[in-house]
């Protein structure tokens, strides 16, 4: 988030005049709406908002938001965002990427923008497939994914974006999914975080990887399969009948039954978004044995890259007048007389 005066806008103000070109039924539509719903609520100013993207289905996103937008090259959006933010820290920078763009070709830049903690929101649309190139498996595809490039099923183990982000030093990690009604709340929290805010958004690719997230995202069974984390609240799911506690003998999380709502008795952990150790456990939790951890997993701000860098520059230049003539004649000089 940037420090800005809130502006009054409506969802309509954030719709660009461009025809949206995603496949009908694509999860991206829902994410677009969630973002367009969020922006007025946070008082964002279209003139000071910049959406930056790389290449892929998700990266078409900036064309559909009525703000400043830069559709760049594959995987490099974090680097462009860095230049933009350093050149003008007053801009509110949103970065839209995908699992191929952000975790594969651009994995290096994703790592470094998080480590540096540039103030921006990073929305990684994870559909576990390459959509725009017609369906090849991606670095987040599950083991055994059959695709045009892996007819016998993929054999490489998937990357996990949230775990990657935390490992890279992210100070804000959240998860949501395209059609979730909670997505705007997650986006608002990301925006409220000063620094690089990483949001993994599971997104349904209706053509090449249809319903791959139904195991936890489908309305049926959602209560049992989704753990929505809230700061200062116990980690409960399945209508409060189950929770997570820390097994102190082996130092890992485990699912416990909660009887009559007495979560204290069951030893359920209270979520503290600043607890990095617990965040590591949450992003590593295998789905199936555990519910899918969603919402804000971790949020503990640190000074931002641009504040540190530009602040240091300002300190170093303090009291120095930009005198070009003096600069050019620096060092040992001599004069040739006429």
């Amino acid at each position, binding site marked *: 988030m940037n420090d800005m005066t809130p502006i009054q806008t409506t969802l309509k103000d954030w719709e660009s005049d*461009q025809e949206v070109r995603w496949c009908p039924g694509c999860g991206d539509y829902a994410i677009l709406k969630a973002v367009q719903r969020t922006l007025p609520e946070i008082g964002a100013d279209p003139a000071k908002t910049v959406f930056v993207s790389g290449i892929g289905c998700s990266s078409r996103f900036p064309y559909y938001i009525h703000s400043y937008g830069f559709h*760049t090259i594959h995987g490099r959006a974090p*680097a462009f965002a*860095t230049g933009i933010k350093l050149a003008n820290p007053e801009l509110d920078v949103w970065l839209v990427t995908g699992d191929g763009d952000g975790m594969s070709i651009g994995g290096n830049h994703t790592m470094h923008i998080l480590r540096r903690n540039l103030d921006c929101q990073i929305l990684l649309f994870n559909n576990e497939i390459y959509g725009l190139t017609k369906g090849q498996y991606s670095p987040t595809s599950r083991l055994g994914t059959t695709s045009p490039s892996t007819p016998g099923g993929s054999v490489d183990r998937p990357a996990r974006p949230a775990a990657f982000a935390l490992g890279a030093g992210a100070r804000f990690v959240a998860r949501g999914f395209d059609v979730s009604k909670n997505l705007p709340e997650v986006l608002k929290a990301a925006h409220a975080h000063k620094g690089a805010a990483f949001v993994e958004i599971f997104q349904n690719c209706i053509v090449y990887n249809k319903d791959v997230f139904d195991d936890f995202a489908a309305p049926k069974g959602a209560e049992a399969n989704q753990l929505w984390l809230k700061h200062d609240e116990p980690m409960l799911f399945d209508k409060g009948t189950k929770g997570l506690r820390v097994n102190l003998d082996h130092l890992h999380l485990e699912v416990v039954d909660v009887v009559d709502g007495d979560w204290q008795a069951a030893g359920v952990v209270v979520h503290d978004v600043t607890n990095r150790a617990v965040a590591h456990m949450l992003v590593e939790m295998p789905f199936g044995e555990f519910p899918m951890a969603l919402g804000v997993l971790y949020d503990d701000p640190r000074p931002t890259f641009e504040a540190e860098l530009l602040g240091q520059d300002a300190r170093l230049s303090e009291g120095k007048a930009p005198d070009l003539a003096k600069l050019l004649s620096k*060092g*040992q000089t001599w004069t040739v007389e006429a």
Partner: protein
Amino acid sequence: MATIIANSETPAKTGESAVPEAVVVRFAGDSGDGMQLTGGQFTLSTALAGNDLATFPDFPAEIRAPQGTLFGVSAFQINFGSTDITTAGDAPDVLVAMNPAALKTNVDALKPGGLIIADTGEFTKRNLEKAKYESNPIDDGSLAKWQLLAFDISAQTLESVKPFGLGNKEALRCKNMWTLGLALWMFDRDRGPLIDWLKDKFKKNPVLADANIAALNAGHAYGETAEISSTVARLNLAPVDSLPGLYRTVTGAEAISLGLVAGAQLAGLKMFFGGYPITPASAILHNLVKMKEFGVTTFQAEDEIAAVCAAIGASYAGQLGVTSSSGPGIALKGEALGLGVMTELPLVIVNSQRGGPSTGLPTKTEQSDLYQAVYGRNGDTPMPVIAARSPADAFEVAIEACRIAVQYMTPVMLLTDGYIANAAEPWKVPDPKTFEPFPVKFLEEKNGEDQVLPYKRDERGVRPWIKPGTPELMHRIGGIEKAIDTGDLDYSPGTHQAQTDARKDKVDGVAKGIPAQEVSLGKAGGKLAVVGWGSTFGPIHQAVRRQRAKGVDVSHIHVRHIWPLPANLGELLRSYDKILVPEMNTGQFKTVLRDQFLVDAQPLTKVSGQPFAIAEIEAAIATFFDGIPGNAGGDDLVPNDTQLPSIKAVNP
């Protein structure tokens, strides 16, 4: 560099009774011996003495190669004198060899009768073996054609720093200052500035400062002893006849950094520099970090790609984006440069060329990235390219790159090379008040009927620059083909044709805003034009000057604007019977000239990692006049395959 005096006399040779007009000294030693530092300080004292000069630092890619080995030799050559100097000199008059390996790799370059100063303390059995000497050259008579001044510099140094209680290793590190002291005596130089510099350099360790100063003084005192003055004549070269004014020495990397800062100031912009460490380009980043008060932000990115992308991001946000690298890094930046051309954002890319392909010769010079600069991107991706010809020229060229970038909303590639980047020459400090500003005007209001048209072109085909943050002008840009004016996504056939043409026309149009090509030396029309670009300026200029002094009808044309080429260049080239293009690659500019003008440009190529020798270019010129096909015309040349270029490299 002082102004070129077209017909001044050829520098006289040493060994003659009179004081020569120019002398070439080469310091050579182990890469840990501090030869570059010695050379740098000798350069400064030379400049302060008012001599014109040119230098050529030549060092291995290894930071500390195994001691005493042939590949670990680091050398620094300086050509200085009371006349106009434009090259580091063909063959040294004086060679300072700090060990057997340095002697072996450099002595063949020395002029017959030249002086060798050798440190016998390093000519041990072990070091001789490492240098692959079967017997000690100091006493086996193999150095008979040169003057030899061999004595134990190591012992002399140890003796001179004894009072400071340094360890043996630390004490021997003062050897380079001892040697420098002797060199300063030889050329009658003031030690004052160097003593000041040592005090400053070792201000945290005054003992080391004192030890180095003692070594320096001891070397100088040694020169005054009788046995030396009988062998070596003490030379005091008169100051060069330069234009009046304030001077300093400048390397290409310094001049480019200063030029970029000046360029951004003239445009009224802050500058954003994105870089990633690479030899020999890193020096620009190191210089710019010290210029923050000029609104310079420097960003050491995670890789070459991020460096250019961040710079483009900064340009998009309204600063002057700059990135710099060497060939392999420029290759990585290629896709982003295409985006810069496609989105039409200003950007300056500095390529400090080195020997290629791949990692190639990281510390050696070459001009082989010209194709990469002009053609090296996917799609029809026109980009202006300009080249610096010398360290001092790099300053103006950097300003020119900034001007073209912001006035035409385009990435501009600035070509320099390892030689220019590291070499130093005197520079008449320009007065910033004489610079022509080119202030940038951002679009502040809608330029269409109630809408913003980010790709609406002006009469030169240039689109407006719109900073994010400007109210009401929200719009989207990207790498996909775009509709005329609106910039909306549109890759219909007609649009792509029209936009490709528009991008090409815009860059072609840059030629209308650049000066007509001049003849550097000689006249328009005649028998032969020697056409160069970049750092070959010095040797070409001297070769043409010498040949013209002999009455040969040859002229020198040196091209700064590589793409687009100056509008009159084709006509100018066609006014000569023959065209010779010397370049440190296999003939790249020659191809561009042939392609653009259908002229019979003949190549003179060299890729040994070393600059051209004047004699090599003279020899090539001679082939156009002596009527003997295949005769390189250099019969009196001493073949030399070691460090400086050999006649074998001349292959017209």
